[in-house]
Each structure stands twice: as structure tokens, then as C-alpha cells.
């Protein structure tokens, strides 16, 4: 159902989109909303570049011997797909776009604590992206997104150092964003906005920011070590130079496992807003959901060894990491159960954001549960480096993070653009994404279980049916991603005016006009209700 729409509020201030036009006011803006849109445009570009590489891979795998490319090119395709998608789409996706746009508004502030640092973070991000893309154009990288040594330091003849420098640079953008969010949430909350009145979105973004600040420097130093060993033969990871290759994996995964939570926590942030709004109920177990974000952020740092069970990790260490990996399922499960409980006896409506949220719930649960398979030592040995792992992390990163991102974009699009998108088409595209996603990745669980290794450009004939299914799914998924791009751009100009609060939601961001004025609020708001107080705010919401 579509919620009743109020007539658009007449703003007395010019909105952030109309204020100063032209290229320079955008490129030099310190307005968090405009910077959020700069990020949106950039990561959308990176998403389609990374997606293009994925599509090429899937087309290649239509035939058992490979239909399109040589082995070396195939190696480069999956590497570039991984690098672009992880560091230039998933990591900055929700924090850079919706986080930038919404955090100040949700706490009733005019901007982030450090607006110039925020703009700098976008420039640093773009610099890293351009350096990485340049390395790819010069010849690409073939190490896999994980840059495992000794291949990356000694044997690869590709542009490893260039790509690593690009990621190193982009890492500073993550740190700047994380730092900005932490300080903003601590210091700039509106009167009455206590920690436990904050929307869960903010708790999750706060937890994400902690991970960004604590983990990213380790990636930076690790990549720097790879560059130094590769270029100057400094002995860090190469045993012949006195180094240890497993040390690379320890350091890499100390960042890269928490990086999964950098991707999924913001999606959880979005889901925690959508489900209460479209169930017309406060989130079930607010405190538990809030603390579970911090729990995921902390425990997520203790589990990296499960990526290394067959890499020479000692048995006793593997047992400890296995146990800790099971632990991280607890806060994730708290969230899933509480979101589900929020819907129970709620007045649930099936608008597009809610469809994405429901999709997220199912797909994230499958991704999370298969993660437990991988935490189990015996099963992990069987499926390590197979398509089972590929399917598992795509259920988390695409089924979870991308569904959350798309849900969030649809939910806040009326606020961002001031316009409504075509609801029917949007629901159809949510359905296409869900079907396409499952058709792409579910067969990969079976492939992996049957023994199909990841990163292989060829495979035995008996796997062809499942590979063809997967490629067919990827094509459908591609359509599902292009559709929102088209109708959202269309709605920017031709959509119906959205009004201040089309979903009758409770957050402070919905109390200002759509699109908001440059400084967000005409007067500093005062928070007088707990989060998601649909009952207490009934009259205000009816007037919205």
C-alpha cells in the first residue's frame, strides 16, 4: 500500500539542491547532503564498472573451457571485480551516501562535525579510485582482491603496486569518514537527543565508524609492506628474505574480516529504520539491537583466523578462531529475531523499501547461516576456496549490503530528491533483484559443495548446468540494478512531489522539508520522543 501523502511543505528557505548551481558549488561544497550525492554518483559509477567485470566473468563461464578469455585475463577480471566492488563500492556505499546525508539530520544538526574533512574524504576517495582504475587500464592486476603473498610480492607481473597504492589512498577516506561520524554523534546531537533516543541507524553507523577507524590503518600498513617487499625486496613476508607469508594473511584479515561488518552494519542500520516504519511499530528490543551493533563491531575483530584454516594456521589457534567465529553469530541473530518480532502484529505495508528489507532478512540469514558452516573446522576444510565461499559472501555482501543500500535509497529518495519514484516499477525491480540474485548465487552453493574451486576459468562438463543457471541469474540481476537507476533519474525530474514525510516516519530527518534546506532545519529541533514512538507522535504524523 502507499501511505497517504501530505501536500508538499512550502519551504521558506531554498533547498540544498537549488541553492548555488553550477559545477564549482558542487565540487567545493561542504554541505554533507551534497557530498553524500557526490559519493552516490561516484560509487554508482564504480558499481557498474565492477558489475561489468562480473558479467564478463559469468559470460566466460557459460562454457566449460571458457567462452571468451585467456586464463590471465580471467584472473584479472575477478581481481578487478573484487577490488572495485569491495573498496570502491561496498565499503563507502551506505556510509558515504546515506550516512553522510542522514547522520546530521537524524541528530538534528546542521552538518557533520568537520565539513571540510568530509569533502576532503571524497577527494581522497576519488584519487584512490582513479589511481586504481589507471592501474587497471595499464594492464590490470591478477592477484585476487586479497593480494596474497608471495604471488603479489614476488611472482605477479601485473600492476600490483599501483592498485595497492590506490587502495591505500582510499583507506584514508574511510578513516576520515569514520572519525567525522564518531565526533558528530558524540558532540552534535540536538537537545533531547540522548544516546537511547537515537534511531538505531545511528548506533549502527557509530559501530561502523569504530571499525573503520580501528581496522583501516592495519590494511594501509599491510599494503605498504607488500609494496615495499615487491619493489625493494624488504623481507617481511617472503621466507627467503626472512619473512613469513602467513603473517600477511593475519594482517590482511585483521582488516578484511571487520571490513565485512563495515559493509553489513550500515545495511543493518537501514533495515532498522525501514522495518519499524512499514510495520508502524517501535523496533522490538531497542537496547538489544543498539548494543548488538557494538557487539558485532567488537567481536568482528576476533574472528579473522577462520579465513586461514587451511593456510598453515596452528590447530589450537584454529580452534580458538572457530569458537570466536560462532560467537559473532549471536549479535547478528539478535538483530534478525528482533526485526522479525517488530513485524509481528504490526500494520505491515509492502512498499518498495519494505520489500528490500524483507529480501535482506532472508538473504542475510542464508549468508549468515552458511558463515557458520565455514566457521566449523571440518566443513571449512571441505569447502575452502570453492564456490561455496563465493556464494556465502555474496549472500552477505550483495544479498545483505546491496539490498540494504537499495532499500535505503528508495526509503530516503523522497527526502533526498523531494520526489516520489514510480512505486509499481520499483516493486517490480525489487522482485527482479531478488529472483536474479538467488538464481545467480544459490547454484554456486551447490557448485562449491560439489568441489568447484573459485577463481578457475574452466571446469568439468558436469558443472555446466549450474554455471549456466548462475549466468542467467546474473543477467536478470543486471536488469534489476539498471531499472532503479533509470526510474530514479526519471523521478528526479518528473516524479510527484514527495512532501515532508511520505512514509509517516518518526525520525528528525522527516520533520524538515523535502529536499531539506542547506542547514537542514529552519530552527534547531528538540527531540521530545523516544525513537519510533508512533503512538506518542500519532497526531504529528497524521498531519505530516
Amino acid at each position, binding site marked *: 500500500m502507499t501511505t497517504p501523502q501530505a501536500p508538499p511543505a512550502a519551504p521558506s528557505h531554498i533547498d540544498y539542491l537549488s541553492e548555488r548551481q553550477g559545477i564549482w558549488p558542487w565540487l567545493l561544497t561542504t554541505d554533507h547532503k551534497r557530498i553524500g550525492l557526490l559519493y552516490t554518483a561516484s560509487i554508482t559509477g564504480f558499481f557498474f564498472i565492477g558489475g561489468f567485470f562480473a558479467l564478463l566473468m559469468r559470460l566466460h563461464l557459460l562454457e566449460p573451457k571458457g567462452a571468451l578469455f585467456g586464463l590471465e585475463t580471467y584472473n584479472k577480471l575477478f581481481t578487478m571485480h573484487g577490488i572495485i566492488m569491495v573498496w570502491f563500492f561496498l565499503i563507502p556505499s551506505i556510509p558515504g551516501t546515506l550516512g553522510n546525508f542522514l547522520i546530521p539530520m537524524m541528530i538534528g544538526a546542521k552538518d557533520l562535525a568537520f565539513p571540510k574533512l568530509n569533502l576532503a574524504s571524497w577527494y581522497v576517495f576519488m584519487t584512490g579510485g582513479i589511481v586504481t582504475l589507471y592501474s587497471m587500464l595499464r594492464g590490470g592486476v591478477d592477484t585476487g582482491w586479497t593480494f596474497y603473498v608471495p604471488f603479489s610480492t614476488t611472482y605477479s607481473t601485473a600492476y600490483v603496486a599501483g592498485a595497492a597504492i590506490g587502495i591505500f589512498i582510499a583507506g584514508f577516506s574511510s578513516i576520515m569518514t569514520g572519525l567525522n561520524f564518531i565526533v558528530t554523534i558524540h558532540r552534535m546531537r540536538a537537545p533531547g537527543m540522548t544516546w537511547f533516543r537515537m534511531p538505531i541507524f545511528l548506533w549502527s553507523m557509530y559501530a561502523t565508524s569504530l571499525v573503520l577507524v580501528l581496522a583501516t590503518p*592495519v590494511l594501509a600498513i599491510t599494503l605498504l609492506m607488500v609494496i615495499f617487499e615487491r619493489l625493494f625486496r624488504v623481507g617481511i613476508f617472503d621466507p627467503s628474505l626472512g619473512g613469513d607469508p*602467513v603473517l600477511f594473511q593475519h594482517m590482511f584479515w585483521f582488516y578484511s574480516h571487520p571490513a565485512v561488518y563495515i559493509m553489513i552494519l550500515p545495511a543493518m542500520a537501514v533495515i532498522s529504520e525501514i522495518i519499524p516504519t512499514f510495520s508502524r511499530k517501535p523496533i522490538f528490543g531497542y537496547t538489544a539491537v543498539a548494543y548488538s551493533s557494538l557487539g558485532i563491531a567488537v567481536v568482528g575483530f576476533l574472528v579473522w583466523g577462520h579465513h586461514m584454516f587451511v593456510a598453515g594456521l*596452528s590447530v589450537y589457534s584454529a580452534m580458538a578462531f572457530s569458537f570466536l567465529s560462532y560467537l559473532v553469530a549471536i549479535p547478528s541473530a539478535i538483530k534478525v529475531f528482533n526485526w522479525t518480532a517488530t513485524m509481528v502484529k504490526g500494520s505491515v505495508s509492502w512498499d518498495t523499501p519494505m520489500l528490500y528489507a524483507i529480501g535482506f532478512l532472508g538473504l542475510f540469514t542464508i549468508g549468515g547461516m552458511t558463515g557458520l558452516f565455514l566457521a566449523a573446522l571440518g566443513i571449512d576444510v571441505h569447502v575452502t576456496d570453492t564456490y561455496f565461499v563465493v556464494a556465502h559472501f555474496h549472500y552477505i555482501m550483495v544479498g545483505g549490503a546491496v539490498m540494504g543500500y537499495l532499500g535505503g535509497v528508495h526509503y530516503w529518495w523522497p527526502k533526498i530528491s523531494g520526489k516520489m519514484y514510480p512505486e509499481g516499477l520499483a516493486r517490480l525491480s525489487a522482485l527482479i533483484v531478488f529472483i536474479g540474485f538467488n538464481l545467480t548465487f544459490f547454484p554456486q552453493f551447490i557448485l562449491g559443495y560439489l568441489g568447484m574451486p573459485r577463481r578457475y576459468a574452466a571446469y568439468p562438463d558436469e558443472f555446466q548446468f549450474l554455471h549456466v543457471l548462475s549466468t542467467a541469474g546474473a543477467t536478470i540481476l543486471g536488469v534489476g540494478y539498471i531499472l532503479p537507476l533509470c526510474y530514479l533519474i526519471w523521478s528526479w525530474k518528473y516524479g510527484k512531489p514527495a512532501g515532508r514525510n511520505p512514509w509517516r516516519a518518526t525520525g528528525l530527518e522527516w520533520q524538515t522539508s523535502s529536499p531539506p534546506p542547506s542547514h537542514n532545519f529552519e530552527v534547531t529541533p528538540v527531540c521530545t520522543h523516544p525513537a519510533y514512538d508512533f503512538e506518542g507522535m500519532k497526531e504529528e504524523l497524521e498531519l505530516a
Partner: protein
Amino acid sequence: MAEPIVRKRTYWIVYVVLLALTLLTVLLGYLHMGEFNMVVAIAIATIQASLIAGFFMHALYEAPLVRVVTVGGVIWFLIMMTLTLTDYHTRGWLPFPGK
């Protein structure tokens, strides 16, 4: 928040202590204490790093929240080291090559 006022003398004292600890590190390097050479060197380096963070980076004079952040960074570093060492120090406990 206003910048803390620290006397120049304090900085000089800390500087001299840092130099003395560096000298001590070098001298202890000549003593053969087996594995303890590393332990002592790391202990001295930790003290030096704490002095720099506390006095030169003003961690001692900052608001409690900033100090919490500083300590948090140290704790996370220790998590990384401890869990990594659970691997290195338990290798070879089982009578199989590489385990």
C-alpha cells in the same frame, strides 16, 4: 577545548628520559639475555611510546573520552598481536609437520 598549558621544562625532561631510554636499549643489546633481549627492548619501547603519546601528543591532558579512544587503539593493537601469536606460539604442539 582550550589547548593545555605544559611547561617547557616538562618537555625537556621527557626528551632527556627518551634519550636515556634509547641509550639503555642500545647498551642492553650488548648483554646476552637470550629471549629476554626482545622482551626488554619491547618493554622500553612501550614506555617510550607511552611518554610520547602522554606528553608530546597531550593524551594525558585531554578529555576522558579522548583518553578512552587512545587506550582503545592500544587494546586493539594488543588484540591483533595476541591472536596472531596464538598461531605462532602453538605451532609444533602436535606431532605432525606444520601443525
